[in-house]
Structure formats: C-alpha cells, structure tokens
C-alpha cells in the first residue's frame, strides 16, 4: 500500500479566513463624508463583531453570558500575524474575508455601504494581499449598490482572486436581476463569486430567527439557510444560465445542505419547470457545479458519512477546504484529514480544487 502523503507536504489552500478591519483602519481609505463617521466610532469599545453604525448587533448578544475560556473572539490584525498563524495550521494560500463587513448587507444606507466596500477593498489589497503572496483577496461586492460593486470588480480585477457576496441580512436574495452587473463584471474578470453569511437576527428572510431561544439554534441555521436560499434564488432566476462562465462558491455552511438542495430542486422542477424555462438541465446539475467550502465540516459519528455526502453531490472536483481562521468555529486541517478520503480526493479538496475555483497556480498567482 502506498504511503500516505503527510499533510504537511500537501498543498493546502484555505478558501475562507478573516482579517480584522476596524473603523479607524478603514477611515483613511474611505471617501468623505463617511470617513468622518468611521473616525467617530474608531474608539468605541468593541464587542465581537458589534460596533454601532459599522457592524450592528453582535452574535450572541441576545443570550446570557457566562464566564468561559473558549476564545471565541480571536482576531487577526496584521498580515504578519495571519501568515504566522496560518503557517502553524499548515495553510499555504488563503483567501481573505472581512470580520465586520460580514454584516455589510444589513446597513440601510446604500451610499455608506458602498463607501465602506470601496474602503475595505482598497485597504485589503494595500495593507494585506500586496504584502504577502500567501494572502489572496476576496473583494467585497456591495449589494446595496450593484453598479458600484461592478466598478470595484473592474478596478481590482487583477489583484483579487474572488468576489465576496455578503449574505447576512441580504434583501433581495442574490438571484435578483438587480445584481446582474456584479455577475457580468465577475464573469468578465474571470473571478468567482463566493457567498458568505454570518449570524444576524433581522426581519429579512431567512434571518427572521426570532423564534429561537439560543445561539445554538441561530448559528445552526443562519449560514446554511442563507446559502440555501441564495443558491435556490440564483438557480430559480437563471443566474446559473445567464452567466455560464461564472464560477460560484459557497463558504461557511458545511456540505450537508448540498444533497438536500439538489434533490429538493429536482423534485420541484418536474412539476414547475414552466417557472424556470431557461434551465436546460435538471436543477441539480447547476447546483453541483457550485464549489463548496468544507468549514464548518460536519462531525458525524461516522466520519465516512462525509465521503458519502460528497458523493451525493458529485463533489470530488468542487469541494474545497476552508478553515475560517481565526473564528470561534474554525476547522484545523487535521479535522478534515481524519475523513477517509481517497488520496486523489484528499489532494483535490485540500488544494487542487481551489486552484481551479480561484484560477491560480500553486504560488497563488492568477493563471
């Protein structure tokens, strides 16, 4: 039997890690008058992902807080810190997402949200990804101003590897026609779009989670329900047909929602094809082309169930590793490496599939 390649010798591409952007750090990159607003909250005592007028409504602020040693508020403040910490968990290349701007879509002021997105993108490239080749930029697309988001994609096309689509508190969902300029720009730039949610409580479906007592319940559903809603939205309005060269990825929702969505859409399709007459194949065929990041990888009693789940959505070529470092529910690569993947699956999931998703070589350069 061939010896198993040590994890340390595998290429590991991490599709989802988080930088910590503070209002004060973004202010110098932000257009007036919004820079003034950022400076005015620069010294506000920060709770985790909870700054008024910047990232309102922190996770877990609704439930009783007891003392704990769970370091649930880890943050990464500099590229040097990020590279060092990723090296410790064995990651070779990493795609950077924000912390606070996970909630960008909940901000009601479109001009402010767009200014924040522009500031973040410029800051991310200037202060992070241009300083270390292992760090790769997912620039944010502001859903409140799709035309501006499209201009941002064109502006940064050569210095990013992906376009991040915020999902928390999003209205309307990402299938809406108003977002077409974003998809058009991303497709033309050869950049994938990546859905990423976070827990919020909001009147907006599917974040109207007021019925839950616990963060246990809210966090179980927030990311997964949101990506399911958005994927179904993008299939049902034909994004997947109208932008045939657009690569789509999903982060931070695990993988077990995939077989459900595939099977549910195929079932509905047989009765309601007329509502989606632009589909020329069964819906699951389109869903199975979507890339899926592993984190938070399911932890079933039988770890081989992960392999079964992947088989259910034909995921050998579309499943990509993600750690979500440094967040409270990050996955160490060792966890995924406990899953009984074949050597080929292992190499693909840890690195090779991500190279295809992001269109990069093993050094992180755009192909």
């Amino acid at each position, binding site marked *: 039997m061939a010896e198993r390649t040590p994890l340390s010798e595998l290429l590991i591409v991490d599709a989802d890690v988080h930088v910590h952007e503070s209002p004060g750090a973004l202010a110098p990159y932000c257009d007036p008058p919004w820079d003034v607003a950022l400076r005015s909250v620069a010294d506000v005592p920060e709770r985790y992902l909870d700054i008024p007028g910047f990232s309102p409504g922190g996770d877990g602020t609704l439930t009783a807080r007891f003392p704990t040693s769970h370091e649930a508020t880890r943050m990464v403040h500099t590229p040097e810190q990020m590279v060092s910490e990723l090296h410790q968990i064995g990651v070779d290349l990493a795609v950077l997402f924000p912390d606070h701007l996970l909630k960008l879509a909940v901000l009601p002021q479109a001009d402010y949200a767009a200014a924040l997105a522009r500031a973040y993108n410029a800051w991310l490239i200037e202060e992070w990804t241009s300083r270390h080749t292992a760090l790769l930029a997912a620039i944010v697309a502001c859903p409140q101003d799709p035309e501006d988001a499209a201009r941002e994609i064109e502006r940064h096309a050569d210095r990013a590897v992906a376009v991040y689509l915020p999902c928390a508190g999003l209205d309307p969902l990402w299938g809406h026609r108003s977002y077409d300029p974003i998809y058009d720009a991303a497709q033309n730039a050869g950049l994938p779009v990546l859905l990423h949610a976070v827990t919020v409580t909001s009147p907006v479906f599917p974040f109207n989670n007021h019925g839950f007592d616990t963060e246990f319940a809210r966090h179980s559903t927030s990311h997964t329900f949101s990506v399911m809603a958005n994927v179904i939205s993008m299939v049902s309005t034909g994004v997947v047909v109208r932008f045939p060269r657009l690569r789509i990825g999903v982060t931070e929702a695990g993988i077990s929602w995939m077989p459900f969505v595939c099977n549910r859409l195929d079932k509905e399709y*047989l*009765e309601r*094809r007329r509502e989606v007459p*632009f589909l020329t194949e*069964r819906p699951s065929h389109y869903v199975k082309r979507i890339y899926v990041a592993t984190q938070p990888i399911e932890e079933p009693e039988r770890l081989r169930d992960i392999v079964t789940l992947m088989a259910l959505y034909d995921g050998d070529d579309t499943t990509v590793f993600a750690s979500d470092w440094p967040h409270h529910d990050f996955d160490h690569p060792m966890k995924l490496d406990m899953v009984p993947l074949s050597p080929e699956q292992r190499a693909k999931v840890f690195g090779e599939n991500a190279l295809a998703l992001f269109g990069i070589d093993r050094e992180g350069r755009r192909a």
Partner: protein
Amino acid sequence: MTVVGRLADFPEGTHRIVTVDGREVGVFNIGGRLYGLLNRCAHQGGPLCAARRTTGTLVADADSGWQPRWALEGEVVACPWHGLEYHVPTGRCLAFPEIALRRYDVVVHGDDVVVSPASSHRPPAASGR
C-alpha cells in the same frame, strides 16, 4: 396494427385514449396530424393522456433575453397527477430531455384510424424547444 376508430372520432385539437394490444394509448390530433403516446407517465405511472387538453408551454433562451415566451401551442401535455410535461409529437419530456415516452404510429386507412407500435420509440434529436 389496431383499428381504433374513425377519423371523425379524432377531431383536430382533441385526443382520446384507445387500447392497443392491451395497452392504453393516447391518440392526439394536432394540426391535422395524428400522434400516439403510451398513456403512462414516466414519473409515477400517472394517466398522462387523461389530461383534459393539450396546451403550449413556457420556454426561454438567449434569443428571448432569457425572458419566458409561450411556445409549442397545442403540442404539450402535462400529466394530471404531478404536471410533468411532454412534447406530444416527439414524446420528449420537457423537464428531463433524457426521458422519452413510447410512441405509436397512427395512420389513416380509408376512414379508419390505425395504431401500431412505432419502429423506434425514441424521438428525433430536435424536439422543437
């Protein structure tokens, strides 16, 4: 070959179910041409040809800017059970093109309508969509 009725029994724009070799077959008159389909939906075995009427359906493609348009008027039958649609002239399932129903040849001899199993039940490659 089974005589299933007189031509006057199949007015244009109608269909009815007949029995051929012990099997139920829907005979459709679409634009003056006669078509035969096995009366059994590939989905859950529903009585496809018991549908009250044929209709058109919605299609969309790049030529229509991905906007839906009404097409195939009078050529589409939807199963009464769950609505799976078929293009009658080809037997092709619209949702799942890899599925095609068994087709029957329907010809007129004198005044008789005669049904026989098609030499091939596979539809032609182009379904008109």
